[in-house]
């Protein structure tokens, strides 16, 4: 067990290294340097030059790379040009917003997908099953931004059920119940959109898992012992089918990260995805490199998590 995890983490290190190298090379191709943001009409060009030398701007590239990665490990990604604050502070604020959104999305995702998957599997080939399969096909085919916009248009603007942008109403003070509710209310629509889009994988997996379990010996034994059919499903089949679903968690995180760029832009939600688009549009390169690195790290962490859960659930895939 531990062997698998350790080996899996060791595989991650070279991947992170190559990723950081790629990002570093990309950063070198971007115009400007960390001092472009500090230049004002009163700055003496000689002073900027001095700063550049001091910061190692003219060092060989590998020295620069080592310095950059060393700083990054200490959480120092430089300063943002457009916001003029340290990148880590900027990302810290936004990351919390993205975290809340992701948590609610994952919760809603499992809340929607598990009952649908169980129902589709249990009542296989009925009208209910066919409708659920059709639903999951449709959400699989819809691109994120199209569903996001349509939801925003109908539920946000036409029906007016949800706020159309931001994280919280300004009229509430921080810490009150109204504040928390308003925050929840603002992330509800983006989270539902997220959750709906991700349901396909879980529904189809759970459905086929349950259909397979139906013909298993342990189910037949349970039935022949006279256990009520509902209990066979809720106790025996459901538990066995649910474990592999847990492994989807890692992939879900990876998917959420990619989708956050679209969802946060559409719903005007100030998270990391929106920050990335803003940084690209403002050519704020220190923020861009930090975000790409962070997303890369989180993506790797997601797949690591999936593999670990998988190896706990299914001992056959462990490496010994």
């Amino acid at each position, binding site marked *: 067990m531990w062997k698998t995890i350790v080996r899996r983490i060791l595989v991650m290190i070279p991947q992170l290294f190559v990723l950081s190298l790629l990002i570093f090379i990309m950063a070198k191709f*971007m115009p400007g340097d960390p001092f472009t943001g500090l230049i004002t009409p009163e700055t003496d060009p000689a002073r900027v030059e001095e700063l550049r030398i001091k910061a190692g701007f003219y060092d060989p590239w590998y020295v620069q790379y080592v310095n950059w990665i060393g700083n990054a490990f200490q959480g120092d990604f430089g300063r943002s040009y457009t916001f003029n604050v340290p990148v880590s502070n900027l990302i810290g604020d936004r990351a919390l917003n993205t975290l809340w959104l992701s948590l609610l999305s994952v919760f809603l995702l499992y809340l929607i997908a598990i009952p649908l998957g169980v129902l589709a599997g249990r009542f296989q080939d009925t009208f209910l099953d066919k409708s659920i399969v059709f639903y999951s096909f449709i959400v699989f085919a819809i691109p994120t931004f199209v569903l996001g916009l*349509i939801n925003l248009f109908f539920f946000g603007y036409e029906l007016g059920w949800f706020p159309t942008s931001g994280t919280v109403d300004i009229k509430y003070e921080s810490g009150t119940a109204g504040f928390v509710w308003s925050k929840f209310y603002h992330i509800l629509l983006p989270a539902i959109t997220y959750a709906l889009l991700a349901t396909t994988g879980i529904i189809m997996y759970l459905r086929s898992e349950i259909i397979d379990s139906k013909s298993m010996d342990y189910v037949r034994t349970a039935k022949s012992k006279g256990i009520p059919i509902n209990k066979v499903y809720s106790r025996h089949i459901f538990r066995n089918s649910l474990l592999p679903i847990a492994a989807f968690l890692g992939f879900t995180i990876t998917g959420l990260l990619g989708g956050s760029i679209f969802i946060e832009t559409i719903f005007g939600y100030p998270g990391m995805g929106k920050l990335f688009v803003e940084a690209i549009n403002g050519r704020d390169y220190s923020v861009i490199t930090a975000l790409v690195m962070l997303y890369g790290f989180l993506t*790797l962490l997601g797949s690591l998590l999936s593999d670990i859960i998988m190896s706990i659930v299914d001992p056959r895939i462990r490496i010994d």
Partner: protein
Amino acid sequence: MKNTEAIEQTEIKVSSPPTGFQVIAREFMKDKLAMFSLISLIIVIGGIYYWASQIDQTQLMRISLRDKLAEPGEKFWLGADKGGRDILGQLIVGARNSLTIAILVTLITGFVGVVIGLICGYFGGLIDNIFMRIIDFFITIPSLMIIIVFVTIIPKYSIVEFILIMSLFLWVGTARLIRSKALSESRRDYISASKTLGTRNIVIIFKEMMPNLSSILIVDMTLNFAGNVGLETGLSFLGFGLPPSTPSLGTLVSYATDPFIMENAWWNWLPAAILILLLMLAINYVGQAIRRSADARQRLG
């Protein structure tokens, strides 16, 4: 004498297993919705290409402030945008551009993916190991973000560069799929037999092994095509796709990022969003039907 010949012939017909295309055709005959999707896709795509060729693009993109945000009516069937440009014309040309890019990216990634996948699967060993590490790396990076960064830092950015950047990150899926199939295929007897006969590797790979993987490839490329339409329009929606002067379905949808237009001028973005939605549904549905026909256990017909 004639009679026995006829009988023999019918027997031969019955015993020969249906070929790939017959199986796919049968699946479509059974699944009416898939048939409907396929026919309407062909009509819509053909119509878009024909219609777009009739539209004068410079005339279309000319700004006329008098028609700013004109509502749908006699002059503009689907209204006009902020610059008074006809939405319907932009929709047709944009759909043509989006489809062309998606088709080209699908073909490029399909070609690269098949060649790399077949070579890795057939030879195995060191080549396979090297490519698998590269593929693993591509799978674990946040490719959407890196595509966006590439798009913004490349000087002299145009459609060609855009297609190449997309292809650079999208061949991995196909390569991995084809590799895993080729790996099991290369252990089959007919490959060993051919090797013993002294057939050259390149002939075995492309003339003997590849036809057996064609159905999987068709499925994969159809689904990739849908994915590429989604990705291109998504990138253009964010403003990192086609250059602004070239209409794309994504650019049209991106008019909705202006809350005023979103609320008051639905004709600016909703038709494009619905067209994307319908295209994606139809292509995916056709892809699913072909996938079922490729897998004997799931076939309807």
